[in-house]
């Protein structure tokens, strides 16, 4: 069903809730669709002009009937709005992390998170930056990476999304809805993955010639593997920065001391 009649889901609770909400609206629409198409097709077949058929009924309106379908349509929409409000909180607000998720360590950035989740649990805060045509991820502790985001399972991951050139849009269908990456703004979304695995998506806002190649990937691993990744990546960054600084020093030594140094 998912993907043909209903949206992708299964990676994160907010995606599952969006799927549930979608299904409710869809199920409410199906009878309306059938009634409209049914009466339309039936009228077209039953009341086509026939030799010796009945005279067309000269009806100009029917106030009770018209009032009732107006009120009926309004009532259905009020109900849909109510159902949306019921699901909204669960879709929008990040829940606390599950037991077994990343906890306690320095990587958990709940300190600089302005709004702690209502449950009070810790979350992992990752900054996402869209650029033509890749995504940059900044993890707590100064570690950053491109293309693939690595996250621990059973941990609520909150994303702070922006862009540094044109508008992009962050979208991993199985992990919930989109959040536009707008230069000068920070947009937020979250996900919580229960099983290790690879989740794929791509930029959803036309961002230039290679828009369709701007893929996004999230790899969910165990908290320990995540710590290992972060450590290794941090070391790599440190080493390459050292190497870069060394190169610069050498070049400057060769070219002579920069004036005003």
């Amino acid at each position: 069903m998912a993907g043909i009649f209903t949206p992708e889901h299964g990676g994160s609770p907010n995606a599952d809730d969006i799927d549930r909400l979608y299904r409710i609206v869809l199920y409410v629409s199906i009878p309306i669709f059938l009634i409209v198409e049914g009466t339309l097709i039936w009228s077209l077949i039953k009341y086509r002009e026939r030799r010796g058929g009945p005279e067309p009924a000269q009806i100009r309106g029917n106030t009770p009937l018209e009032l009732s379908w107006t009120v009926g349509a309004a009532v259905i929409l009020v109900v849909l709005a109510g159902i949306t409000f019921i699901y909204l909180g669960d879709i929008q607000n990040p829940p606390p992390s599950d037991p077994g998720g990343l906890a306690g360590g320095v990587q958990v950035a709940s300190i600089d998170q302005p709004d702690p989740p209502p449950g009070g649990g810790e979350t992992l805060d990752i900054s996402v930056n869209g650029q033509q045509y890749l995504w940059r991820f900044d993890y707590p502790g100064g570690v950053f990476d491109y293309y693939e985001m690595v996250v621990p399972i059973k941990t609520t991951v909150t994303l702070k999304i922006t862009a540094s050139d044109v508008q992009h849009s962050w979208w991993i269908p199985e992990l919930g809805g989109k959040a536009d990456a707008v230069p000068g703004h920070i947009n937020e979304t979250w996900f919580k993955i229960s099983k290790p695995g690879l989740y794929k998506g791509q930029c959803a806002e036309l961002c230039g010639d290679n828009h369709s190649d701007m893929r996004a990937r999230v790899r969910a691993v165990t908290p320990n593997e995540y710590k290992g990744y972060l450590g290794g990546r941090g070391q790599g960054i440190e080493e390459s920065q050292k190497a870069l600084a060394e190169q610069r020093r050498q070049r400057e030594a060769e070219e002579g001391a920069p004036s005003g140094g």
Partner: protein
Amino acid sequence: MAVSDAPARVNGGGPEIVMHGLHERPRGWLEWLTTTDHKKIGIMYLFATFIFFILGGVEALIMRLQLAVPDGTLVTPETYNGLVSMHGTTMIFLFIVPVLAGFGNYMVPLMIGARDMAFPRLNAMSFWLLAFGGIAFYVSIFFEPPGAGWTSYAPLSDDAYMPSGGVDAWIFLIHLTGLSSILGAINFVATIHNMRAKGMGWGRMPLFIWTILVYSYLLIIALPAIAAAVTMLLTDRHFGTDFFDPTGGGDPVLWQHLFWFFGHPEVYIMILPAFGIISEILPVFARKPIFGYKAIAAATVSIAFLGLLVWAHHMFTTPTATVVLVFFMLSSFLIAVPTGIKIFNWIATLWKGSILMKTPLYFAAALPALFVIGGISGVILAVFPVDWQLHDSYFVVAHLHYVLFGGSVFGIFAGIYYWFPKMSGRMLSEGLGKLSFWVMFVGFNLTFLVQHSAGLSGMPRRIYDYPESAGWWGFNLISTIGSFMLGIGVLLTVINVLRSIKHGQRAGNDPWKGNTLEWFTQSPPPENNFDVIPRVRSVEPMKDIRREVMKAGEPAGTVAQPVTSGT
């Protein structure tokens, strides 16, 4: 004959000035170039917009070919983005909006019993501005076409990311066609308010006239917002301002607000007159009065009003406060009520009728059948948490085509089949018309129904290729096959029109037994439209006239003949 005493009543017995200040008219193509006759201008609108429709359609077919298989290599990404931008811009600014102005131009004076538009020269200017707008836009394909979509979101459309002149060509198109539409709209408003036949109060005005009036007011309200926005974009691009550039204190979200403040009313600008067309056709072919005339007119006005309050539902995924999202969800929901009323009223119009199964009715009945799908997907998209998942995906592409093709374009085709006999004096072929309808109907649904599924399985819009592993191949292949069927269906109507202009069966004044005044005059109407303008006593003046003639015992053949009819 019962109608012959009408002028005395219309003019209170005074002398009737039919025409004055007549110049000798140039002949041939110069006549078309210099004409201020609303009917000739209407024909030019219809002709020019259909050329743009075909261009936009070819652009769509190239895109569908590119997407038919994974990793398509037919066009480059640059070309694809150019096609995306040209297709959307062409269909909206150069086809649907102006083709409705074309129908309005031709039909408004005839339906309200006037001899021309209020400002005939302004009317000609509207058309030529449109033509020049289209030309200014299309010459960009010889340099570099715009590549930021029909929405041209900043900062992508800014000079830093899109230095080519294509975006500038797009800006000029918006200004020229916008000016064309505003002038045209003022003309419609002035004409409809002041030039209706005696007795045609607001409650007796044909529903198509209601929708053209509301279309005009919406254009006047909405277009200045996009005119301002594109002017700001122009100065951002060339004169160093930073309206939409965050590094200079501007805001890309401002572009979206200005664009969609225009862009959503634009949707109703495109659909309401199509609703008007089928509100004329359904009662004529069902041989019944329209069900709930007042409700449909009121629904038109309330859709237009609510349509001004829903723009940010195009922006649910931007960083926006929840309370704003809730407001725009509820306002978008509300608009479903008057729209639903219209659909129910149309079905009730058919119910217990004696339905004449002719091509105009096929297209007119397809509109509610298809629009209801677009309406339902619209309500789904209005639920903003669901929109977070579906926004900017192929689900939205499917939705907007059900509304604009299934709605507007099927309505426009209904109008072509309905009014072609009036405009040309000849009937379109029924067989070719019905064939065209079925090929279009099946092709349309093949093309766009599966696009819902492509979107639900994660395919974003405006991508030039996709990997096989994405699992979207099947949907796209079906869609491409459908799109070519749709193209063939459209072509059949084009052939039908070209053939029937010369060889169609003679139509006579009133081939459908219409309800409204355009059927009172000859087909095609003479330059002054009517020698005699009958007094309007109901919303179906032609029915009254036919009844009067019957009472007077005249043979049926003389029904609705103008006094000086030469036939």
